[in-house]
């Protein structure tokens, strides 16, 4: 018998922590290897954590709702395997530790201590420094030019034949060198008198983290097409009052766009993908995230299976989700499972923008303002309702060709949306 630890596993690329949503076992329960022991929620996936051993659960190290970093302890289990068999893991740990201490103490290897570069030798001679008394921070204990510069700057130069006290203080300065640049790099912005400091918490923090991660991980590329939606605008304006009266909520332009995107994704499933390190996962369900802004917050609730819904159904979902967002009633379920994002930037009056992809999706489409513009048709000017659709794509997953075809299809659908061949029900 041996007491083993079960740690939080790595549940996906870039996942750093998981929250225990439900424990599936309690202390005293017998489990087999690979049996699920807990449901864990991360910002990317919800998953069951399997047991790494066969045995009896001894102690849960975290409560439901606790967040545990990857590699940290979840629970203890008493295994039925013999103690010897479990030892390798202990050994690994201790070996790791040894390696780490090796790294932490560069002084161990001193093979380069007496190899002086021309710069170091010159500076030591010019300043009459006894190199034997200088600690090196370079590889193999080599004294670097920076080490000497530091010594000269400190004004505390160990001359040949200097006292031991001298030597002691010298060593201290030299030891501090490696940490100095790090501290400088991490220095945060300072605020001036009169500036307002706003603590970054909750949703703002999550937005910041997601945006940084998306921009750091995903090589963004961009593409914009312009679409003539004159017929769509006429159609919608014709029916909107009647619709509102009958259904009790508004028929927005955005619903038409979401519908067209869902339909086009059905034909170009590549758009509905996720980068997963060594593979690309193409999602079966078309769940469209839409961005909903509320004061200082931004939510991306999801219209599930958008391809199966009518324009009316989508309009209702948009209405419901927006109302929920504004009254703070969105649930985790409402935000889960998005596979592609449609962003109604036009509602802010934007006519062109480059969206940040909603990680881990592969693309985001910005629906810009519909603007009446002069357009040349058959060599004549015409006043047409034009709209720009701006796509940001994960260039690891998607290329220009497929995105161009996708956008062309969306354009085609929208330009052929009119009262004769479209149905909102």
């Amino acid at each position, binding site marked *: 018998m041996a007491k083993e630890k079960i740690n939080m596993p790595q549940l996906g690329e870039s996942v750093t922590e998981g929250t225990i949503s439900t424990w599936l076992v309690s202390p005293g329960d017998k489990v087999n290897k690979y049996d699920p022991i807990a449901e864990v929620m991360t910002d990317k996936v919800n998953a069951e954590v399997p047991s790494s051993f066969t045995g009896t659960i001894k102690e849960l190290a975290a409560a439901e709702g606790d967040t545990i970093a990857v590699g940290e302890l979840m629970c203890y289990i008493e295994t039925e395997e013999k103690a010897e068999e479990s030892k390798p893991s202990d050994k690994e740990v201790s070996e790791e530790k040894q390696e780490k201490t090796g790294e932490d103490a560069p002084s161990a290897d001193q093979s380069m201590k007496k190899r002086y570069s021309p710069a*170091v030798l010159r500076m030591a001679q010019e300043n009459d420094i006894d190199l034997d008394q200088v600690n090196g921070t*370079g590889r193999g204990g080599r004294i670097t030019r920076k080490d000497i510069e530091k010594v000269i700057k400190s004004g505390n130069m160990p001359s040949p034949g200097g006292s031991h006290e001298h030597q002691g203080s010298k060593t201290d300065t030299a030891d501090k060198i490696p940490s100095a640049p790090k501290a*400088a790099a991490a220095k945060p912005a300072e605020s001036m008198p009169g500036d307002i400091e706003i603590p970054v918490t909750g949703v703002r923090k999550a937005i910041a983290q997601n945006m940084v991660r998306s921009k750091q991980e995903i090589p963004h590329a961009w593409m914009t097409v312009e679409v003539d939606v004159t017929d769509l605008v006429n159609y919608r304006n014709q029916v909107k009052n009647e619709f509102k009266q009958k259904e009790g909520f508004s028929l927005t332009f955005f619903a038409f766009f979401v519908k067209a995107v869902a339909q086009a994704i059905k034909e170009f499933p590549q758009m509905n993908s996720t980068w997963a390190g060594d593979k690309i996962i193409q999602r079966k369900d078309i769940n469209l995230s839409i961005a909903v802004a509320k004061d200082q917050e931004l939510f991306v609730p999801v219209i599930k299976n958008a391809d199966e819904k009518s324009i009316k159904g989508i309009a209702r979902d948009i209405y419901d989700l927006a109302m929920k967002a504004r009254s703070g009633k969105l649930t985790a379920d409402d935000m889960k499972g998005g596979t592609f994002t449609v962003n109604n930037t036009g509602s802010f009056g934007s006519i062109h923008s480059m969206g940040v992809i909603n990680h881990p999706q592969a693309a985001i489409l910005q629906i810009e303002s519909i603007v009446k513009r002069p357009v040349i048709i058959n060599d004549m000017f015409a006043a047409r309702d034009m709209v720009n659709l701006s796509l940001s794509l994960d260039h690891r997953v998607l290329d220009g060709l497929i995105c161009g075809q996708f956008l062309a299809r969306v354009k085609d659908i929208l330009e052929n949306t009119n009262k004769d061949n479209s149905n909102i029900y």
Partner: protein
Amino acid sequence: MPVMSYIQAVTSALKEEMKRDEKVFVLGEDVGKKGGVFRATDGLFDEFGEDRVLDTPLAESAIAGVGIGAAMYGMRPVAEMQFADFIMPAVNQIISEAAKIRYRSNNDWNVPITIRAPYGGGVHGALYHSQSVEAVFANQPGLKIVMPSTPYDVKGLLKASIRDNDPVLFFEHKRAYRLLKGEVPEDDYVLPIGKADIKREGSDITIITYGLCVHFALQAAEKLAEEGIDAHILDLRTIYPLDKEAIIEAAKKTGKVLLITEDNKEGSIIGEVAAIIAENCLFDLDAPVQRLAGPDVPSMPYAPTMEKFFMVNPDKVEKAMRELAEF
């Protein structure tokens, strides 16, 4: 300031110079109606007409030769080699005629030609479409070789090249064409040929490079900054003649120098940079001068894995930088 891609900066420099000086004209394969295979001359044919945007036969020797002749009679031709790899048939014209005529005629004649050529790999172009050829020309006094790394530098240096009274080879990295974007002033400005530019100030290690590798170095430097490694990056911009003063200053700054080129290592331009450092900086050096370059194989391979092996990339740069910093 508008944000432009590297290739848009090429086009806008050409357009502005053609507007400014009617002696400026463009010639090359498919530069006219098609606007160039990379679309560097897009729109010039429509704006300036067939007399100033010339489609030539597939004969690089003629493109260079016609340009040199026109230049000697007072025109300012901008000749395009479709790929730098195709410049070889024109080498005799460029080296034997363009580079030497001022010297040979005791200043009676000069050749104000600019020869543009896209070079470099990383685009699955394999041989004939990926090579770096600058070293072939980099010991021919009389020639100048400009290899910019940013859209801003492209516009300022291409304008300077066109206005220069002697032949300039202007090599543009084809992968940078649409990869790199940056702010470019709309107004008229020129940058000095023969001057290197500090792209990042730092105190731990010095990187000296040019072209697309400048960006690899900048990317790696940002990453290493988090570990407290502070890189100083010098962009040569003009690789012949070299800005010796700037090279010496940058090398002395940290005493640890990494030289990077995408070209084959042996005989590449960075070997000359290393020699300048060796002649002038011995007592400031804190580590052996390091070179990161393509392997000494005849050409960029086609297989993606082998191309990756050949090409310099941010990971290789980061590794080389870290090793030097730790030395």
